[in-house]
């Protein structure tokens, strides 16, 4: 073991509480808020069908029978059936997302590597 | 007020009791034991006892 090991400061009660609260706030601000505000979620489009029947909704008799067993009528099932995901790709958004994910991994691997060398040097002693 | 309403209140009640029990127990443990003892577990320990990593 190396003689000049890094001595970290002890964290007091207040600091520990502050850090715990920070993490909670981070979870709620970044993940929970967009969820409740409805900013996230399935990018879908819904087509409206006037006076829907099973036929106009494109359901064959077997499908219609199963819908009815589930307790649906053409009216109540119409929205479920006509809602479709929108898979048109916005190249700018795709590029931004790719850069964010890639950048995140590169940043993380590089910093980990730097910190890892310190850990190894302290654990096994400085390399001769 | 039918069966299901009673069910709802019962669920609130029981969850409240369980949560309170855990909080109460945690506070008690904090009081009765030193922080040093509570946070004394170490990651490497089991390795020393049960796993051998030398090259055989």
């Amino acid at each position, binding site marked *: 073991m190396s003689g000049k090991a890094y001595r970290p400061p002890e964290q007091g009660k207040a600091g520990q509480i502050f*850090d715990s609260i*920070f993490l909670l706030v981070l979870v709620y601000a970044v993940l929970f808020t967009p969820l409740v505000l409805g900013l*996230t979620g399935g990018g879908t489009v819904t087509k409206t069908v006037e006076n829907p029947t099973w036929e106009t909704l494109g359901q064959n008799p077997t499908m219609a029978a199963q819908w009815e067993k589930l307790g649906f009528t053409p009216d109540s099932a119409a929205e479920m059936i006509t809602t479709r995901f929108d898979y048109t790709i916005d190249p700018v958004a795709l590029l931004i997302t790719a850069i964010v994910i890639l950048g995140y991994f590169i940043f993380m691997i590089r910093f980990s590597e730097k910190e890892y060398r310190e850990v190894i040097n302290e*654990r096994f002693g400085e390399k001769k | 007020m039918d069966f299901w309403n009673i069910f709802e209140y019962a669920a609130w009640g029981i969850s409240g009791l369980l949560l309170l029990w*855990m909080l109460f127990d945690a506070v008690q443990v904090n009081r009765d034991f030193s922080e040093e003892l*509570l946070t004394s577990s170490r990651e490497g320990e089991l390795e020393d006892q049960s796993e051998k990593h030398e090259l055989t």
Partner: protein
Amino acid sequence: MSSTDTAGQDRQRISLLRVLGPAHVWALGVGIVLVGEFMGWNFTVGKGGAMGSLIACWVIGLLYTCVAMIDSEVTSTVAAAGGQYAQAKHIMGPLMAFNVGLYLVMAYTMLEAADALVVGDLLSSVAGEMGHNALDPRPFVVLTIAALAWLNYRGVLMTLTVNFVITAAAFISIVVLFIGVQPWNPGHMLQHRELLTDLPYGWIGVIAAFQFGIWYYLGIEGTCQAAEEVRSPARSLPYGTMSGIITLLIAATMTWYVATGLLPWEYLGQAATPLYDAARVTGSTALQVFLFIGTTFAAIASANGCINDASRAWFSMGRDRYMPLWFGAVHPRYRTPYRSILFLIPIAVSFSFTGLLDQVITFSILSGLLGYTFMPINMWMFRRKWPLGTIRRGYVHPFHPLPAIVLLALCITTYFATFLGYGTQLLAMMCFYIIASLWFTFHRYKYVRRGDQFTMPWARPRGY
């Protein structure tokens, strides 16, 4: 107080209890995942149609086979509570380990929230059928989480023994449903010929379905969280994981077959409790009751395992001061990481209350996916820093680096799949991890002892 590390050797210590056998490992792994057959997997149908869902099930099955191979090798060598977190710490470095620990906590806590949400939803739909409209699901959400947290608080052996029983019961309910719909008699109950359609979105829909394809298996790698409580980790963990994957492949195939033969895909793609609904349209009350019990049990078993795993990961980070040290405490009587268990309860409850099943699941999936992206990189470094023969490995997986390459390619595809339809959420999740990483690097890491993080009795890594 705790700066006296070397002097601490003869001091009184408490640690987690080493009491679990292979059956518990199976119950922890499969218990967490099996709920995926009762809810969540069907969103693949919504994104890519019924046939797209089957393709996703198989392709993602391949992803998990790679995960199991890679994970078995590393876990059988690094056996410590915290699982992949401890692996990252020894192989890649602190910041990566911090992120992996957070992935585990978030993936399991969100999964736990989804489980509780399903219990609440199921009860209100049963109440609705019995003539009581608008049952409030929230008390049952809280009750599920509180009761399971309590069980976890009281000890790991009881927790996982309960899990073994309810997981087995849930698995049996899938088998009963499969037999009950008479698969040898197509057209009688199962109507695949009439219900299966072409791919509604074409092949891009199949790719998009990969996102929720993860849900068929997510959490199976959680078995290594129990490493400090299993009696012989090097043997039990790979064995429990492999038998778990086989159980899941069987269950997933049966589930797909039954559900797509009974429900129109548009319904299936949005249902909260698809297997229960499938039992409902068979018209058999017995099957319906069976699947009600199965769904509830599966959700409870999963939430139970999630509390176990998430709290172990959080606890390990506390112990290393990646998180406030306060969380690294073990209960002196029950020997559980009791403070971590308590801390995560409000997060699970509040995400459950949103009622947005597909989105809560997406958070869980993304955290899982980031964890799988870490695995191949980790594997490369592991083989490079400690080539075969330099340390004793419990298990060596064949064909390296092929599994790592396949895994990385499938992960990238799945990010793209999530981008299709859930792009905002993907970015929100990345923001979360980026901010957390900055916080760790520039604030939190100063409290961490450098050399103490490396606890394995290994040789110095090659090249350092």
